[in-house]
């Protein structure tokens, strides 16, 4: 399986993602934002970081870069696209996924492990993962997910809420919500569920020597669905 990771000025999780994808068997290429075409890929990843120094709004400048038209075209044809953290913010700014990411409710940059409950119905990202609760890592200032009531309703009806923050027992509550996101939303799909945007970083937790190994389940599951 071939993947491409797009590098923007200010991306800083691009190489972690490269390591993770290769570890689980992807043939990965790094693609510069100024290129016009993505190489032949089965998966495109917009990595985390601080593209363009978070100027204007997080992800807003990157969403207008040269490579983005090619990413949008790939996504509209049904190609798998993942945006992690700043990559999620870029997806939001391109309009490929619904909603907005506001400043964290308590104005703190949050860098810690959290737990999420994944939606396993009708998607290639989480469907066959055996664990119900995943321990992943977050590191962001603007991850407070927001969308209109109408959008929330249609996303709920269409199973587009991908992951929600919970505690280690799987309880989804205000207490387990790190950043004020509505409905504890940590990640969403587009309508066809080929695009996933999420704040947590699976690529940071892919080995037992790290603080968690649950990111491995994510990549293994994704790859098993692509073969």
């Amino acid at each position, binding site marked *: 399986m071939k993947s491409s990771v797009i590098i923007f000025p200010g991306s800083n999780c691009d190489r972690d993602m490269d390591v993770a994808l290769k570890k689980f068997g992807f043939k990965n290429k790094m693609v510069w934002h100024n290129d016009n075409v993505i190489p032949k890929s089965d998966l495109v990843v917009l990595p985390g970081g601080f593209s363009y120094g978070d100027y*204007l*709004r997080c992800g*807003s400048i990157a969403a*207008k870069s040269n490579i983005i038209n090619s990413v949008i075209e790939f996504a509209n044809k049904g190609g798998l696209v993942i945006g992690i953290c700043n990559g999620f913010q870029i997806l939001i*700014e391109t309009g490929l996924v619904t*909603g*907005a990411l*506001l*400043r*964290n*409710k*308590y*104005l703190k940059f949050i860098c810690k492990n959290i737990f999420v409950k994944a939606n396993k119905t009708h998607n290639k990202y989480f469907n066959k993962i055996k664990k119900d609760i995943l321990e992943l890592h977050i590191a962001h200032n603007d991850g*407070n997910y*927001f*969308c*209109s009531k109408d959008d929330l309703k249609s996303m709920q009806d269409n199973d587009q809420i991908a992951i929600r923050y919970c505690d280690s027992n799987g309880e989804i509550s205000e207490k387990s919500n790190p950043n*004020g996101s509505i409905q504890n939303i940590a990640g969403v799909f587009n309508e066809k569920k080929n695009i996933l945007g999420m704040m947590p970083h699976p690529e940071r937790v892919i080995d037992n020597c790290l603080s968690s190994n649950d990111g491995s389940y994510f990549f293994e599951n994704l790859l098993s669905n692509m073969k």
Partner: protein
Amino acid sequence: MKIKVIVTPKNGVLDPQGKAIQQTLNSMNFIDVSEVRQGKYFEIETDLKDEKDAKKNVEDMCKKLLANLVIEDYKIL
């Protein structure tokens, strides 16, 4: 010609920065302050000569880049 634009969070959208500013003002004894909403201000220098054309152009910029209409409103001054 210079066109000025203000972008503000929409009503009902949480504005944690505005809230922190309000609380700080209250703690500084500006006890009359019940709400602060923080926005952005842009000055756009354009080569267009006609004000109507220029404002129309800036409106397009607001929709495409300067504001995120999911969470923000814009006002061309």
